[in-house]
């Protein structure tokens, strides 16, 4: 069974790019344009990993994360922060990695593979 990745980002170009990147590399990918939609998708698809932008319209990434981990089944889902914001490594202390945009696709895929295979 394919591993599922949820991509939460307000930039449609990033969503398209990451969705194609993950699908091309054997994952199922789902996209959400904001925290609200992200939470809905997370509940529905129970992802194995989430990539998360920090600064988004409405709730920011950290609030999405806080709400997501309230759900027992999503509490330990690994999160990769992908953001252009400076200091993003501090935004979600429990994130498994924080990557600054623009990012190296091979590096990202390496982190994803290490986390969920």
């Amino acid at each position: 069974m394919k591993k599922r990745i949820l991509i939460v980002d307000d930039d449609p170009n990033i969503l398209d790019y990451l969705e194609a990147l993950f699908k091309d590399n054997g994952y199922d990918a789902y996209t959400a344009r904001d925290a609200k939609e992200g939470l809905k998708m997370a509940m529905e698809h129970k992802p194995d990993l989430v990539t998360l932008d920090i600064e988004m319209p409405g709730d920011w990434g950290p609030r999405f994360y806080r709400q997501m981990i309230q759900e027992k089944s999503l509490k330990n889902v690994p999160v990769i922060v992908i953001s252009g914001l400076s200091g993003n490594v501090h935004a979600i202390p429990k994130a498994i990695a924080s990557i600054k945009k623009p990012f190296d696709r091979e590096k990202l895929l390496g982190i994803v593979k290490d986390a969920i295979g």
Partner: protein
Amino acid sequence: MFTKILFATSATKESDHAARVAFNIAGSYDAHLDIFHVPGVPSRGYSQVVVDVKTKERVDVDDDYLEWVKDEIRTYYAKYLENGLRYDITVAIGFPAREILRQAKDTEPDLILLGGSTGDEEEAVYKKSMAGTTLQKIARSAKCPVLVVNRPAASFWGGLSNITFGTDFSKASDKAFEFAMKVAKNLDCELNVFHALDITSGATGEMLSQDEIEQKIREALRMIRGRYESRLKELKHYSMDVWEGIPFIEIVKYARDIHSDLIVMAHHSKKTEKADAILGSNVEQVIVRAGCPVISVNR
């Protein structure tokens, strides 16, 4: 909630994380932002020759220099200022703590916002000229709450929704609680009342048994309920907790654990001995270490 914010900044990268908080809070809550900068410290006395904070060079102060500094600040924060934010830029020569307090006295903000250190001890122009830190002096003397963002980790990550209020059950803490309640109500935040039971031998005079610690925790929880719960019921979401340990460490840990985006504490709610003052009170230690902004309420 916040209508007038005084943001004291070095306008250097050391203040960037505080700037993000200042501009986001001002933007989110439609507050007027007074961007205040002390560009130089007099080389001696009331001399017009100052040591420039950025270049560390000696500069003759005149109107051109001050206008140039304002322009520099406007340029430095250009990306934040283009969104219709209401703001002023004020510059003043002198010792930062004194000038910031003077500006606060003149403009009567409802919040003073400060960044962290401006550099290491050897390099920092401000610190060299100060006995104690700017931050300590302002937190101790300001008439309004002081919000400090000391570390990049404590910057703005998307709004205020979860507040930790640290109490030591003093009258000063009660004042800080009123402020925390006001913020929680106005911004629809969860308010978590927390007490750290000091079990260091300096505080207890002996090593407590686990039974004694747990008894003290129960007592502290009863005190929280008695003192705050009737008011907390006015909020949609609240909690009450007591942890044992070194108080400032436990408060920082607790806030991190529950993903708080703001800590509210009273300043100097208990008098510190002279020796402790060097290290700073609990709130000063929390300010230095916290992973979110800290508001210190002085009176």
